[in-house]
Structures are given as C-alpha cells and as structure tokens.
C-alpha cells in the first residue's frame, strides 16, 4: 500500500516523518523515481516536500543560504550566484539535462548521496554546512556523506538547506567533470578546486573529487603539498602524483579504477590551473 502526504509547512513535515519513518521523502523525483521504477513494490509511502515554500529561498550576501527545494535550474541561472559563486552554478549546470534540472533539487542531490553528485564537490570546497531539521543539526557537508547512497541523517531528519561564506575576491575556482557525453552523464570522475592567491602565492586551496571514492572526498595531502607554493614554481607533477595516490576509485559500469586514477590526475591539473587563472593570476605552467 503506497501512501502519499504533502505537508504544507516544515513543522508538519518533521512531525509526519517522525511518525512515518518508512515513508520516502520525495522532492524532484529525478533520483527516487528512477530507483522506484525497478522496485515498484518496496515503496510504502511518499512524503512530498517539493512544494514546501520555506525550503525554496536563496539568501544572498556574505553568508549564502540555499534552501533544499531550490532546483538545479534555479541555481544554474541565478543572477547573483552566477556573479559571486559561479562554481556552484557550474556544478548545477552539469546535472542531467534541462528536464532533470527543472525538477531535481539541491536537497535531493545531497540526500541521495551519490559519490558522483554534481553539487557535492563545489559545495565541499566552498566549506558548506548542511542544515537538518527533525532533530535540528548542522554538519559540515564534508562529514555528511557516510558511503554510497548513505548519509549521517537519521530516518526522522530532513535536509533543509546549505549555507556557506561567499568566496573572497582573491579566490579562484573550477569544476570539471569527466563523463561519457556532455548531457545526462553521471560523472566518471569530477573535481572542484577553490584557491586563494596573494602576491603570486597559492596561500590556500581546497580540492574535492567526486566518483573516485565511496563519498565525495577532499584531497587533503595534495592540498597540503601545494599550500604556500609560489605560482611560478608550482610542483604540478608531484601534486598530480600525490592526488592519484590518495584517491580510492573502484571499477564500475562508467570506468575502471585504473582509468579513473589515470584520468583524475590531468583533470585535477586542468582544474587547478583554471582556478588559478580565475583568481586573476596567470600561472607559468
């Protein structure tokens, strides 16, 4: 027996999911209904939060807050985000095709917890914090994923949005995705890079990769190796080798582990150079 409930407020949603923990929370349906297609009878019920106005806001400013029910299309085309956080817009624009971006949501992309989720690497390098309701909780997005399709969320929790600090003017960014085709592809490997550049020096950076580990993951040793280096003497070959050493890709339908390891290196190198270029400094490489 499949039931359906569409709460009109967040508190109604929280109360319902507390009482009905086997109900599936549905938003845009672009992941859930694809899975459901193959397991029609295992669904006991839906709680549809796609109409929850409280979760559809984008708050701009020094602290950016994006509601869980904001769609990929809305992020990709948001004038303020395009100007101040283009990295996130690029991640959103890499999701599916137009029909998927018109329905799929930020909250769904994160809750679905695919290692290939296009919004996760950009948000993680931005230092985003996931906001949960039910038992209220805030958690760095980096710690939100616990495995393929798994998060630290309790069955009675709902993701309500993310927040992060607006990148500074001296920061540069890039998101690159390797897939079989431009549209509709699930990433074989993806990488987001955010750098801070001052006086010809890479003062800080964050690197996050998708599809090369059970969860979207920072390449912290590579970050450490590059942090503080001068742009005119970047140890790119060493950084690339370090990155390839610290990822843990697997074989699947989209690519072999070996292919992923090979491809992630140059993909990261391109993203790093693009990010540095974006920060307004031309590297000598």
């Amino acid at each position, binding site marked *: 027996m499949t039931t*359906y409930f569409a709460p009109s407020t967040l508190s109604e949603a929280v109360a319902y999911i507390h009482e009905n923990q086997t109900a599936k929370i549905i938003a845009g349906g672009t992941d859930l*209904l694809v899975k459901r297609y193959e397991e029609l009878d295992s669904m006991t019920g839906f709680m549809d939060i796609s109409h929850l106005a409280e979760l559809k806001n984008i708050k701009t400013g020094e602290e950016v807050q994006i509601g869980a029910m904001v769609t990929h299309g809305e992020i990709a085309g948001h004038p303020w985000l395009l100007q101040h956080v283009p990295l996130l817009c690029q991640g959103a624009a890499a999701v599916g095709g*137009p*029909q*998927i971006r018109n329905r799929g949501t930020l909250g769904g992309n994160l809750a679905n917890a695919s290692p290939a989720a296009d919004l996760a690497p950009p948000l993680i390098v931005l230092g985003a914090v996931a906001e949960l309701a039910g038992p209220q909780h805030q958690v760095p997005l980096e710690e939100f994923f616990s495995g393929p399709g798994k998060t630290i969320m309790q069955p009675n929790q709902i993701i309500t949005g993310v927040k992060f600090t607006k990148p500074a003017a001296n920061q540069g960014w890039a998101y690159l995705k390797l897939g079989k085709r431009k549209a509709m592809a699930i990433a074989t490997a993806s990488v987001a890079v955010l750098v801070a550049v001052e006086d010809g020096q890479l003062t800080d950076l964050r690197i996050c990769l998708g599809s090369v580990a059970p969860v979207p993951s920072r390449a912290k040793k590579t970050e450490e190796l590059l942090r503080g280096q001068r742009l005119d003497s970047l140890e790119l070959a060493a950084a690339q080798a370090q990155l390839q050493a610290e990822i843990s890709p697997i074989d699947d339908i989209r690519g072999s582990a070996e292919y992923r390891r090979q491809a992630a290196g140059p993909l990261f190198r391109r993203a790093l150079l693009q990010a540095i270029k974006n920060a307004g400094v031309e590297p000598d490489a």
Partner: protein
Amino acid sequence: MPKYPIELKINGDKYSFEVEADLRLVDLLRNHLQLLGTKEACGKGECGACTVLMDGKSVASCLVLALQANGSEIITVEGLGGEAALHPLQQAFIQYGAVQCGFCTPGMLMSAKFLLDNNPRPSREEIRAGLAGNLCRCTGYTKIIDAIEAVVEGRLER
C-alpha cells in the same frame, strides 16, 4: 490502495481525478486522458520522449508523480498546436524533414518550446544544449536543430 484527489489544468482545460500514490504524470496523460502524443520510452528520465511543460518548465513526465502535479498547469504536444493550427515549431519540423520515425518528436517539440520561451534567440550551440535531454534513435539531430534554427531566424514558408 488509497486514492487521493487532484485538480490540474491540462492544455487549458480543468480536470479533477482520484489517483493512487504511485501513478506517474505520464500514466495520467496517456491512460486516463488518452493524450497519446506524450511518449514513454525509457521510463527513467534519460530519453526525453515524455517531456511536457509543467508550470512553464520542461519536465520528464515519467519522473513526476501525478499527485505532485496537483494544482499545476500542464501543456502536452496536443496543447502546442493541432492540424488546424500548427505551432511554428511543428510547421518547421515538417518543412525541414525533422521527423523520421516520429517517436521522439513530441518530446523534442516540448524541449524546443521551453528553450524558445526562455531564450527566443538561441545560438546553434544553445539549441543543441537545449535538446541535450532528448534522444533521437534515428539520429536525426541535424534536421531537428535546423528546424528550430529556422523558427528562430524567421525562415519559415507560410
């Protein structure tokens, strides 16, 4: 299985239904209303054959629960235009031979409509990106893009 009431507008007309929770929008359109222009091929949002407009936005109707469309306005290919008054996009598809087997055509038309509603003068590259969620297994993409470009550039024969 419990049923739930919905009301929605489809191609300009108001309807009310009682539907089950797992009924999809594509099932509602095809099986309850016999609007057979909307096709289903993959059922997983990959092919775009089931594309309709929901509140002005293109969606894969196989990935929307009928209950989620409650209160919304749906336009299918039948609402785009008919034999008596073809939409310029439909005219262009005929004129440019942008139809081979025809199965992808309704979805292509609805994606093209969404594109032009939001960007009336897309470049050829933007047209290609606008159709990125639609597959044509006859691989007749060039003529489809030519047809949309003809509408954009006002090159249709009347």
